[in-house]
């Protein structure tokens, strides 16, 4: 638990809750505005590897939780940061200034959950084509409406709900 207390001392205002995951990984819930500062402090403590950014949609609480999985290669330790944002206007500060790996991971989270990362230099979809409607990992995504992808005259991706336009 020394990492958590160390981090908490560096930015006491930003830390909302400290705990552990079921498998024992240290967990820290942070306020959105303090996220880049805590991320920078974590990197200084040796968490140089941003393994994954993912997220969970909580429609009942009108919130989206974004999860940052960090790893320290020297100490062989994990750290999990969690930040919550409103569901209707999902915004979080970008950590791409701290870890360059966040450039792609934040694009993926934006693509699948619709969280806008402020300060990201090139926030656009990474897996789905740009004109795709909706963010599929949100619980209210309409799975029954098929979207069709075809190629436009300039080679760009065209998305349509119309089966007649086809693939």
């Amino acid at each position: 638990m020394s990492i958590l207390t160390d981090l908490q001392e560096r930015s006491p205002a930003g830390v909302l809750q400290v705990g552990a995951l079921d498998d024992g990984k240290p967990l820290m819930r942070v306020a959105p505005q303090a996220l880049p500062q805590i991320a920078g402090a974590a990197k200084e403590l040796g968490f140089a590897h941003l393994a994954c950014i993912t997220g969970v949609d909580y429609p009942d609480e009108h919130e989206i939780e974004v999860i940052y999985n960090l790893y320290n290669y020297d100490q062989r330790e994990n750290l999990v940061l969690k930040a919550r944002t409103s569901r209707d206007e999902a915004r979080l500060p970008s950590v791409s200034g701290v870890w360059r790996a966040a450039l792609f991971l934040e694009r993926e989270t934006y693509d699948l959950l619709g969280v806008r990362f402020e300060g990201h230099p090139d926030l656009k979809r990474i897996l789905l084509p740009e004109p795709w409607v909706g963010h599929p990992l949100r619980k209210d995504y309409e799975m029954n409406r098929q979207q069709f992808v075809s190629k436009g005259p300039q080679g760009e991706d065209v998305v349509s709900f119309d089966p007649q336009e086809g693939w």
Partner: protein
Amino acid sequence: MAPLNHAKDGLGSIVMTTVEDFLRWGRSNSLWPLTFGLACCAIEMMSAQDSDYDMARFGSEIFRPTPRQADLMIVAGTVCKRMAPRIKTLFEQMAEPRYVIAMGACTINGGPYQYTYSVVHGVDKIIPVDVHVPGCPPTPEALLQGLIKLQRAIRSREGRPRPVPFSPAELSEASRS
């Protein structure tokens, strides 16, 4: 093509056939597949090509890296929606006459990815398929059987079972029927 069997055992030195039959025979025994693996089925496809199963026995030995030199597309793996227009382009770039083997459950109807947003429910909604090889993944033997089935279809006088639909309207028509 019965006369050619006599040529093999040396009993006959003259073979009577038609030019069309001869062309079909040659075509069926020199299918050049496109190097085109989309997911895990591609591993079985590579295995079918390697020395244990040796796809070259059936004249289908050279996997071409460019569609211009290939006339058989083995769609091996999950077809994502974003890949769909690219598959169509590759198919259109292949030399005529061209054939398609749909390998594996994903390629036939979406397979385990039936209820997802990102997977095409069957590659036959994009390009015409000649032979479906079921399995998850199909064994190399199954792929070889699919290849032999395709060769028989090419060698038969009827040729491929149905015409090639092309415009999107025709394609969705074909996928509905």
